[in-house]
């Protein structure tokens, strides 16, 4: 097969999840002997659309896109359709439309639901009433919204165990998250149930909990039940160290492979499903040993720490 040029278009490289994904694409595309053109829209819908147009004009063979917005990406899909260039959405599906493309997705809401369920079960096991805080992502980001909804799906069913006392807007911004959590701990020193919508906020959370004197391992007095999302190296390390109780993991390498295979299949004229699911999984201390090899953060962590 001849050399292929692929446009990889991300909307940002804000968190380790995206950076690892991006690096994985780079590596995998090089592995397959293709060429990669990159474009990052910096969370700007219109710019991303223009970038897609530019890539179409450049005559790329395939487009991998992390769109900023599920609706706003539709004209871009149409443009790619019109040019006969296959397009795959990485990690986020587009809104419903007549435009043809393939999406690879981790079901954020479900994974978050499972994660919080695991945490609630832990809480029930230990007994007592829990005061919960949620770090919400950017309210303009669909994944953040889905994770928030997954959280509330569970806690709203378990009001007898968990009472939500703080919803902290982070805007996906580390210092906002830090200040927000610190303030929340100030208002509710008895918070003992904490969920973050992304693992990339762990350093800030650790710092805030330390300031509040609440950074304790599982089993120690004063431990805060704590769940993360994404499964990055920071999440892995804290899980391994015993500070985290559950992490909802999306499988980066699996999703990247799915994405590129889909492109290859479309070039080969094979039928590809519209939606390719990464089921994801929840990793907890109970399934740590068996699951950690599937956790991308562990692999990153291993490569960084020898």
């Amino acid at each position, binding site marked *: 097969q001849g050399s292929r040029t692929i446009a990889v278009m991300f909307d940002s490289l804000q*968190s380790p999840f995206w950076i690892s994904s991006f690096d994985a694409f780079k590596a995998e595309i090089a592995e397959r002997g293709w060429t990669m053109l990159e474009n990052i829209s910096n969370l700007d819908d219109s710019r991303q659309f223009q970038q897609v147009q530019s890539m179409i004009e450049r005559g790329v063979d395939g487009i991998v896109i992390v769109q900023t917005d599920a609706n706003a990406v539709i004209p871009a899909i149409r443009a790619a359709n019109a040019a006969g260039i296959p397009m795959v959405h990485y990690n986020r599906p587009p809104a419903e439309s007549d435009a043809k493309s393939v999406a690879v997705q981790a079901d954020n809401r479900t994974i978050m639901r499972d994660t919080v369920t695991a945490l609630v079960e832990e809480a029930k096991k230990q007994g007592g009433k829990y005061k919960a805080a949620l770090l919400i992502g950017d309210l303009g980001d669909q994944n953040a919204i889905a994770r928030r909804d997954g959280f509330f799906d569970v806690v709203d069913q378990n009001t007898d165990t968990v009472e939500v006392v703080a919803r902290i*807007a982070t805007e996906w*911004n*580390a210092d906002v998250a*830090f200040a927000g959590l610190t*303030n929340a701990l*100030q208002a509710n020193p008895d918070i003992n149930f904490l969920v973050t919508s992304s693992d990339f906020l762990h*350093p*800030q959370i650790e710092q805030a909990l330390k300031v509040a004197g609440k950074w304790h391992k599982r089993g120690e007095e004063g431990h805060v039940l704590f769940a993360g999302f994404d499964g990055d190296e920071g999440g892995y390390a804290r899980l391994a160290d015993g500070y985290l109780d559950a992490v909802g993991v999306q499988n980066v390498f699996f999703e990247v492979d799915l994405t590129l295979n889909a492109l290859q299949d479309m070039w080969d004229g094979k039928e590809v499903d519209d939606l390719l699911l990464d089921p994801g999984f929840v990793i907890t201390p109970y399934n740590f040993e068996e699951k950690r090899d599937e956790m991308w953060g562990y692999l990153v962590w291993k490569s960084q720490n020898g």
Partner: protein
Amino acid sequence: MKTLTQRLSNPRLLDLVPVVLMLLVAVFFSAATDSFATWANVKNILLQSSHLAILALGASLVLLVAGVDLSVGATMYVAAALIGVFMPGAPVLIWLLAGCGIGLVLGAINAFFVVRVRVAAFIVTLSMLFLLRGVGLWISDTKMVFAAPHLLEMSRASFLGIPVPILLAGLSLVFVHLLLSGTPFGRSVYAIGDDPEGARRAGIPVERVTFMLFVLCGGFAGLSGVVLMSQIAAASSTFGQEKEFMAIAAAVLGGTSLFGGRGNAFGPVFGAILMQTVQNGLVLMDTDPYLYPLITGAVIFIVVLIDTLRNQLSERLGRSPIRVEA
């Protein structure tokens, strides 16, 4: 003897209006939540506003000569990334000094273009905003840069009973206050802000002073970057983003004029604390996160509105009257 109305219409009394506002905000939150009016929370607010206060102090120096520095947020990022990547193990003091030093150098680049090449400050610093963010991403390889553990300890530590970040902000405040009110350099800043041509005629080295102000602004930005990083443990690719607007807003909230010549060292610190207080109060009240930007925007608006009216009033009252009644 002055009559009561004369005393009340003393324009200096009006200067207290922002303080009254602050008190109102504080009283409101204290009534609304139990945890607001606690010593721990006050410390907490001060801790969280220290990096912004430092940043706003620098920004206001430039505003005083009717300049503006939009690159402070990007400067914070570059300073944090450079040190975090290349010398993570350095002692705390070196972190702080290096942060300042990097900021001073970047500030000098701004200053060079503004003063020597005579390009408008807005556009120089706007392009530096893009450029430096790009450089920061390059240095960090777009990855998150972590602060070393001893830096984190520093941000949690106290010196003479004062938490270190607050102490650093306090020292910055003292430095700027002494500079502005106590030195010939500082006084010439006000002259330049009022009328640069006139200042030149009066023999003030306008270029040199303006240059120094941009350099200092950069230095404060670098310091602020290190302080913030020490508090939030890491610098991601959005570190410091949009801080330039926050810093300017804080300075203006504290009564610094965007047109130069008016403002002091306490204003920006006050503004930073006010903004942080609102954020803090909203979280303590567990307000719907959707409402944060609305309320913050509204509070800034109201404070500036009142400040504008106050200025107009004090100008009217302060204008020496023609003595109609003998």
